[in-house]
């Protein structure tokens, strides 16, 4: 009796050890899948987050294998054989076992909390010499505004440019509803909250272009609200890119229509206007579908309201977008105002004039549909300016 009992308990210990080794090895194998389920790690923070992710994969993988194994073993080993109507053993519990399976998970979650806290501290510590980027979310467009080293010129753009090794701090503000600024490859995400300013930071380590995604439901164009971050190889190649941009910005065209086009792509005194978030206009690379299509808009503007000139229709649409809704579209456009630079949706009158001049050139024939010289008078007549 005794020897067989001893060999039974010895076998139990051996089986437990074998199972333990299998679970650990299985967990480690599962953890190797980490790079397959995450985008490339393009920031210093991402590397640390991925390490934690990997630990969770290994641990979670082991637990998953343990439970699956126990269920599969049980349904095979403890299935009722045909004709067996008897009950199982009348066992109500085992205090030691229950203590063990309370203690081990408790210790595990404490360790996980500590590791997570360390990673959290590392990825949120402020870096010196960070590039400060004013980031604005407006339905349904991202825009970035930042200084250039050694230049007085500020850049407004729908795409953020930076370079490898340069820490970036984003000050996030929304023009309307809540959004969330997410760069999957950098592993950063931060909500933009109406009425508050929030912050996110990362340090790119890999050159390339990475998607920026809105991760907080913001309305009809939410799925289309994306941008990108271009990480240049180094500061020199970043400045090369800037020189091309700066030339255009520093030498604004005299023609109002060309000036309007530049305003719509590079922004004005109030930053970048969010037109591209909702409108389609192939010439500028816009493809959003929330708002009316702007292709040849000046042709349609001539016929929309009987008796109203193209210029007046377009101008009123900038400042009173709810006045003439195109059938099938809701009143979603920000109502611009030209009086207070501190308030939301500011658009100075001279910029509005240029934008209208540009919109007037969007015709099938390519000829401007307006008499641009008339615009300042028209504004005065409308009680503007």
């Amino acid at each position, binding site marked *: 009796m005794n020897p067989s009992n001893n060999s039974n308990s010895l076998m139990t210990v051996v089986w437990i050890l074998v199972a333990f080794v299998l679970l650990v090895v299985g967990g480690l194998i599962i953890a190797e899948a980490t790079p397959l389920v995450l985008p490339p790690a393009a920031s210093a923070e991402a590397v640390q987050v991925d390490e934690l992710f990997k630990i969770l994969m290994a641990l979670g993988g082991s637990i998953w294998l343990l*439970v699956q194994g126990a*269920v599969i073993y049980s349904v095979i080993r403890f299935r009722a054989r045909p004709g067996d109507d*008897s009950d199982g053993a009348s066992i109500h519990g*085992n205090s030691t076992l229950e203590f063990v399976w309370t203690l081990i998970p408790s210790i595990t979650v404490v360790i996980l909390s500590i590791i997570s806290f360390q990673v959290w501290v590392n990825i949120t510590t402020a870096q010196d010499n960070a590039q400060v980027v004013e980031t604005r979310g407006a339905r349904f467009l991202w825009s970035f505004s930042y200084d250039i080293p050694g230049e007085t010129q500020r850049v407004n753009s729908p795409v953020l440019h930076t370079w490898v090794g340069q820490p970036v701090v984003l000050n996030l503000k929304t023009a309307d509803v809540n959004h969330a600024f997410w760069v999957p490859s950098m592993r950063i995400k931060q909500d933009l909250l109406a009425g508050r300013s929030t912050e996110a930071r990362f340090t790119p380590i890999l050159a390339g272009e990475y998607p920026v995604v809105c991760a907080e439901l913001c309305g009809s164009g939410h*799925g289309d609200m994306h941008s990108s971050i271009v990480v240049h190889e180094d500061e020199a190649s970043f400045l090369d890119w800037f020189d091309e941009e700066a030339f255009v910005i520093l030498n604004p065209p005299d023609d109002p229509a060309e000036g309007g086009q530049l305003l719509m792509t590079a922004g004005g005194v109030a930053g970048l206007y969010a037109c591209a978030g909702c409108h389609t206009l192939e010439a500028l690379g816009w493809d959003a579908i929330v708002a009316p299509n702007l292709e040849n808009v000046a042709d349609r503007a001539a016929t929309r309201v009987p008796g109203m000139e193209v210029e007046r229709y377009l101008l009123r649409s900038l400042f009173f977008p709810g006045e003439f809704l195109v059938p099938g579209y809701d009143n979603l456009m920000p109502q611009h105002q030209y009086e207070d630079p501190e308030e939301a949706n500011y658009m100075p009158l001279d910029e509005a004039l240029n934008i209208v001049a540009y919109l007037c050139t969007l015709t099938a024939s390519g000829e401007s549909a307006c008499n641009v010289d008339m615009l300042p008078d028209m504004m005065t007549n409308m009680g503007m300016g």
Partner: protein
Amino acid sequence: MATITATPGLGSRTTEGAAIRAADLLRWSLDHKVIGLQYMASSLFFFIVGGTMAMLIRWELLTPALDLMADGTQYNALMTIHGSVMIFLWIIPMMAGFGNYLVPLMLGAKDMAFPWLNAFAFWLIPPAGVLMIAGWLVGPPEAGWTSYPPLSTLFSPDGQTMWAMSLHLLGVSSILGAINFVVTIRNMRPAGMTIWKMPLFVWAVLATAIIQVLATPFLTGGLTLLILDRTAGTSFFDPGSGGDVLLWQNVFWFYSHPAVYIMILPGFGMVSEVLAVHARKPVFGYRAIGLSSMSIALVGFTVWAHHMFTSLQPALRIPFMITSMIIAVPTGIKIFSWLGTIWGGKIRFTAAMLFALGFITLFVFGGIGGIFLAAVPVDIHLHDTYFVVGHFHFVLFGGSVFLIFAGIYHWFPKMTGRRMNERLGQLHFVTTYIGTFFTFVPQHIAGALGLPRRVAMYDPAFTNINTVISLAAFLLGISSLIFMYNILRSLSHGERVGGNPWRGLTLEWATTSPPPPWNFRGDPVPFDDPYGYGSDESGPYLDAVERRFPAPEEAAGA
């Protein structure tokens, strides 16, 4: 509770022994069994409604561009109503239905403590359902089931107000039902049944009811503020006038995280019953399971802000990570205790048992995903992505819905006197399991790779994985049709059974199927140990129950 049983004229229970008919479900009744079935029938209706919406969502997401929907607003409305219907009109009322039907029976009581209140709580649901669907037609709410301001206040049409009113009614219904459960369980246990001898389902309903009473007022309160902001010109959530958008997030999640446990705890109770009965073995660690329900209920109140890791003030994120990690411990205790229950049993592979076992294997995956989401640095990446969608569907579909299925297969014979078709049940299980796995596992991967949730248009790089998800989701749709067919067919064609077809020891089996109007003839005496399977006394007790409540003749001959 002699005062209740002696009251004449309560409800329409004059015809002793008459089975409940479909027409009874449309009438005002004070019988907890009728009310329980009313909850279940209406929930199943909304399951079909919400499921149809899920199919439309997956159809839309087959391609990266808009195809089924005219614009993003239509899609947002669809997913808002899908989520709201599935949570507030399917899972929560379905669990309330099980509670209503089973708790008095398990306690050997003749009804709930407050029958009129019970009926009133149910009848708030149909108008709430009408309001929600009508709001969709008026001008759809498109802010998601979480409805964060200012999108849900300054930027949404009138349907959003009706959505809020609908949820408000459902919240009141939930609170009233929960008060009834607490009072019933506290006061109406039979002689000899201490709280340590209550069936674990009753434990779970008690824990759930405590959460509902304490948490749901925060939902209804928050919705009151939202409705006032929308209709009365207040600005609780409007930062332009001194309000705060984070206030809503805090109040909403202070209810809605505990609501996760409202949706799963009753299921935890059901699986404990199903596993013990069909593995023919006592529940392993009865006290640990009962107490872990209570500790989940308690700790569940301290974790809400883990839904806000990307909006919460950074300094508050770590404390909520720690509480969220802690809640894994009582959940783990339950899973290990269920494994201990089947270990060494004599497992019968009934449809109910298949779903209970399937639940364990799926739920553990959902729980592990939860640990990823609790760890702040990882959650920062995963928050509001398809990883989250996959995670909560794993615990809600692989968890709550699997347990609802298990519960229906298990208690259908008690409710109708007929067994559901086991063959169809097996087919239902296999299709549901495969569908669940291949719908919601790839969602985790898509989210981690960079797919945000709540989008009608997405990066074409995710086309293939979305196609897999949609096809698997369509399989889930088919599996649900098999289930509905099985229910309808078994109502008239199912094999007739006696009082105790599964040889269960809890009190609901110690009466006819379906039970008579006042549940029991005479006062039933509970078996001393509700999970005493395998004990020497249980065999003779079960034989006696079987002799007293035998299967009808036609079934005995078959």
